[in-house]
């Protein structure tokens, strides 16, 4: 491939994608920032799966870089932060979905992207966020029989074993 000038063959910059997302889901999506290869957005929990499908089909976002959870103890909420990359457009989108802390449930995207499968399992393992529709919502890293979610902020670290 020739020397690439910041743009892949897809040719859609982050600004274009952000604009399209706002037009498509005006009431569900909030764009924080968009540069030529980055999109930062917040998506409502109910529309997350739809947004993901749209992004995958329309803008060839075919790689999930990471799915991570964040626990906001004081604000009583949780985040699921997904970083999704489009190889052809060379754009990475950071999409935050906010969840209530007492009932953290979100639609799984592991049927769209197989790569999200283990990330979601790990997020469940560490934060107790339940991904609805995930093929195998089990603990992955911690030993069997663990009864706590270690990365939650109310779990205090320190010697335990």
């Amino acid at each position, binding site marked *: 491939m020739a020397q690439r000038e910041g743009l892949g063959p897809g040719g859609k910059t982050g600004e274009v994608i952000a604009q399209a997302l706002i037009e498509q889901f005006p009431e569900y999506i909030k764009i924080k920032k968009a540069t030529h290869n980055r999109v930062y957005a917040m998506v409502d929990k109910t529309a997350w799966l739809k947004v993901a499908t749209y992004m995958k089909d329309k803008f060839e976002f075919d790689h999930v870089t990471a799915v991570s959870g964040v626990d906001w103890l004081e604000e009583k909420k949780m985040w699921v932060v997904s970083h999704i990359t489009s190889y052809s457009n060379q754009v990475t989108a950071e999409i935050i979905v906010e969840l209530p802390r007492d009932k953290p449930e979100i639609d799984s995207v592991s049927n769209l992207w197989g790569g999200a499968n283990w990330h979601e399992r790990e997020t469940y393992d560490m934060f107790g966020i339940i991904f609805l529709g995930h093929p195998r919502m089990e603990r992955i890293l911690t030993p069997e029989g663990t009864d706590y979610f270690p990365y939650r902020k109310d779990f205090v*670290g*320190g*010697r335990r074993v």
Partner: protein
Amino acid sequence: MDMRLAPHAIAMSAQEFLAWSRDLMEQLMQASGGKKAVDKITAPIWSWALRNANYPLHFGIACCALEMAAASGSRFDAERLGMIFRSSPRQTDVLLINGWVTAKLRPDLRRLYEQMAEPHWVVAMGECAISGGPWYDSYNTVQGVDTFIPVDVYIPGCPPRPEAMIDGFMKLHKKINKEMKGTFLED
């Protein structure tokens, strides 16, 4: 042997007789100083053999496993000292723990330790195996393997250099040399 000392020897079953005669032999040997003499002669031979055929278990856990690999590489060449890595715990003498031990691994490690045939030794390599190292406040790692299996030699470092690892094995050799006294009649 004077049979008057053991009149009941006649009425024994074969297995009883074997056990009895073995005990008697041992008592006689110990009483007469024969055991001491035999030990004195044989113990250096056994300990030489144990020192020079010290097979560590091929078991890489974490960072120190790379230094273990480097130690068997051509620059450090641990094999010239008789350290030949074998993969089955039944055939090895040294359990080299080269990394942190987590709650998930602990039962397996204990099992490996028990699968190894006596005499066997445990070498804790690196800070994580000695005390938990950088993960001292982790909820999932064991703070030192000596909390659940006895350790003979500690090799400090994070990770220790291959020379340090070989030096640790030399320390182990010294320990074997000191300890291996009188194994012949006991085993």
